[in-house]
Every structure is written in structure tokens, then in C-alpha cells.
């Protein structure tokens, strides 16, 4: 088994052993999303108009919740040293950990969002578009969040710092993700938005593993 697969399988196994960690993230997403219809009122037109923005923001905040522990747990128990000393590129380990994070947060959030979209009165096409944009956009959140988690490793109040670092970098993804549903409502296609989300994900994929690895090496010193 390759080092990449080893780290990925280990992190997934750790989540399997402690499913509550993911449960909290998904519960936060549901609660935060459901609060909006209660606060805004039952007007379907209003809810449908804000649905994409609300669901995308809630997904972003939910993804950030679990990112603080992405590398901190390895740092605290000494397994980060083992990753740093593995005889293969640390960038692959960083990528494996971000992929594990996406599988246990981004993927379920993408599947759950269309279900919650029903409460906002979104039609079938919008629900599918919402799921699709989240599916393409959430990997970027995991990669950028992973970078912020690595940069804030060992810092005091790292959770707040992480959010301050990651949130501005996630703005383009948020704009094109939420914008896709509005475009669909206006009668246009979402291909351009999805393509831009995919491009943002590819840029993050091509750059963040190196930056994460550099930050981890710095933290390991």
C-alpha cells in the first residue's frame, strides 16, 4: 500500500472509530441551515432566493469546524513526526489528509444540502445544481482549510486564526457556488460556474499541498 493510501485509510479509520466528530459537523450544518427559515419566515420566494447562499455559507462554516484538528491531533501525539520522517514526499501526506477531510465532511455536506434545500422551497433542478456545485467546490474548502490548519498549527487561538485565514480565501468558491443557483433561477445554465469551481479546485490542488507541507515542516521544527 502506498504512503498516500496508508495515511488516507488511517484517517478514515480514525473517523470511523469516532463518528461523533463528523456527526457534530453535520448536526451543525443542519441546525445552522434550519434556523434561517425559522428566522426569515415561511415566504417561499424569499427562502428560495437566499437558499444557495445560506447553504453554501453553512457548509463552509461546518467544514471549518473540523479543520482545526486536521493536523493538531498528529502534532499532539507525535505522529506528525512520523509523517515528516516518512521516506516519501510530505506533500502526498498533506493531500491524503485533505482528501480524508473532504470524504468525511465535504462529501456528506454535498449530499445533505439538497435535502435541506427542500425546506427552502428549491425546485428539483436547483437542488441538483446545489449538490453538484458543492461536490465540485467543497474540495477547495478542504484544501484551503488544510493550508490554514497547517499554518496555525501550535498557535494560540488557532481556531479563530484558521477561520480568519481560510474564509477570505474561500470567497471566490462561495461566490461561484452560490451564484450558480441564482443563474439557474434566471434561466441560464450553470456550466460556466461549475467550470470555474473546478478550476479553483484544480488551482488549490496544484498549490496547497506544497504550502501545507512547508508549513508542517516549519511547525515540526
Amino acid at each position, binding site marked *: 500500500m502506498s*504512503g498516500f493510501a496508508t495515511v488516507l485509510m*488511517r484517517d478514515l*479509520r480514525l473517523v470511523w472509530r469516532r463518528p461523533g466528530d463528523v456527526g457534530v459537523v453535520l448536526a451543525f450544518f443542519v441546525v445552522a441551515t434550519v434556523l434561517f427559515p425559522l428566522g426569515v419566515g415561511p415566504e417561499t420566494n424569499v427562502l428560495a432566493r437566499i437558499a444557495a447562499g445560506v447553504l453554501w455559507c453553512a457548509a463552509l462554516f461546518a467544514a471549518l469546524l473540523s479543520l482545526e484538528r486536521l493536523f493538531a491531533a498528529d502534532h499532539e*501525539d507525535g505522529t506528525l*513526526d512520523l509523517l515528516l*520522517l516518512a521516506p516519501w514526499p510530505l506533500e502526498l501526506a498533506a493531500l491524503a489528509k485533505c482528501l480524508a477531510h473532504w470524504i468525511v465532511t465535504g462529501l456528506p455536506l454535498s449530499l445533505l444540502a439538497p435535502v435541506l434545500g427542500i425546506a427552502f422551497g428549491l425546485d428539483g433542478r436547483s437542488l441538483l445544481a446545489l449538490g453538484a456545485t458543492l461536490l465540485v467546490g467543497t474540495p477547495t474548502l478542504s484544501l484551503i482549510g488544510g493550508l490554514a490548519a497547517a499554518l496555525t498549527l501550535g498557535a494560540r487561538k488557532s481556531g479563530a486564526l484558521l477561520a480568519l485565514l481560510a474564509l477570505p480565501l474561500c470567497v471566490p468558491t462561495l461566490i461561484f457556488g452560490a451564484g450558480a443557483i441564482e443563474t439557474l433561477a434566471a434561466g441560464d445554465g450553470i456550466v460556466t460556474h461549475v467550470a470555474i469551481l473546478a478550476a479553483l479546485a484544480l488551482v488549490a490542488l496544484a498549490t496547497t499541498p506544497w504550502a501545507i507541507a512547508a508549513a508542517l515542516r516549519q511547525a515540526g521544527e
Partner: protein
Amino acid sequence: MAPPLLEVTGLSCRRGGRLVFDRLSFALSEGELLALTGRNGSGKTSLLRALAGLTPPHAGTIVWQGADVAQDPETWRGRLAWLGHLEGLKGDLTVMENLVFAERLRGGEAGDRLEGALLAFDLLGLSAREVRTLSAGQRRRTALARIVLSQAPLWLLDEPLNALDAPAQAAFRTALQAHLAAGGLAIAATHAELGIGGAQRLDLRGGTSVERPA
């Protein structure tokens, strides 16, 4: 005398603007053990981390079999087995899973060697237990089993005897002697006597030279 496998020359390390150690030089041949001694904060852990490449040295070279390890850090890391202050174990994984993970991380498969490593530290009965349920000594034994399992030629050990009871210390000495007898090298930071005859000693309290055994 056999030519040295590991040659460290002029190694210096700064941390937070403070010079932790300066121009350290030593050499180790096959089967040799170097015990690092000194008070708390004297730089033992920093030296181990510098040797491993975890902390870049301020100056100096580390040469393995005539080649500067800085030229090929991945190959160098493959030659190391690391035991730090922290055990490097996942509490939610079992003893067995932790060992298998560590070996796969090094690019190998534990295979038949796993049972031997568990047996060496009396861990067979604990292999299915999650590490978070173990005592400090049992966790240290698990981390030492990981070192034995690695078959790496150079062991870097930070306080390997920490939390170990007398039988576990004896098991560690047996494993270390077997490693050295097979031509391996070891560098161990320690406050306690390792109990291995013929070990070199590097006192970081003031000296920068290696005291060879009589």
C-alpha cells in the same frame, strides 16, 4: 577499526536565537551506540531532531556512507527509526494497527516480523487493545516495538527508558544489543544508564567531543 558509517562534522543548532550546541563532531561505525547525556535543555533532543532532519542545523554536515544526507533527504529518512518524547501512536487505533500503519508509512509491510516485534516487548496480549487504554509504559513499549519492526539501520531514541519497568528495560536492552550486533547504529538521549557496554558518550553540558569507551 571499521570505517564510520555516520560522520557528523561541525554541527551547530540555534533555537529562538540561542545557540543550543556548536560545532559538534562525531563518527559512528557499524554496531556502535552513542549515548547523549546532559542536563535538561542542554540540546539532546535538538541534536536528535537535527540528525533526523526535523530541525535544520545552523551549520555542519551529516554524512552517511560518504554521501551528504542533505543531497537525498528521502533516502536518509528511510534509514532512520525515530522515537521522540511523544510515542507517535494514535490512541483510537489498536497496538497492532499502529505498528502496521508505521511500517506502511515507511513503505514496507510488517508481515511476519510483526509478531516478533510484539513478542520482544511482551505486547502479544495487548495487540488488539486501543492505545488510549494502555498505561504510559505499555505505550512506550509499543513505540519501541515500532522501532524494532522498522529494521532501520540507525535508531534515534529520545529517552527510550522513560516509563519502562525493569522487565521492559531489559527487553529494550536485548533489542538494542541485537540491533547493534547486526551492524546497526543507535543514538540515544538519556538521563539513565543504558546498560550497553562499549557505548560512546557525548556530554552536551559543555563538551563537543565524543568520549570513547576505555
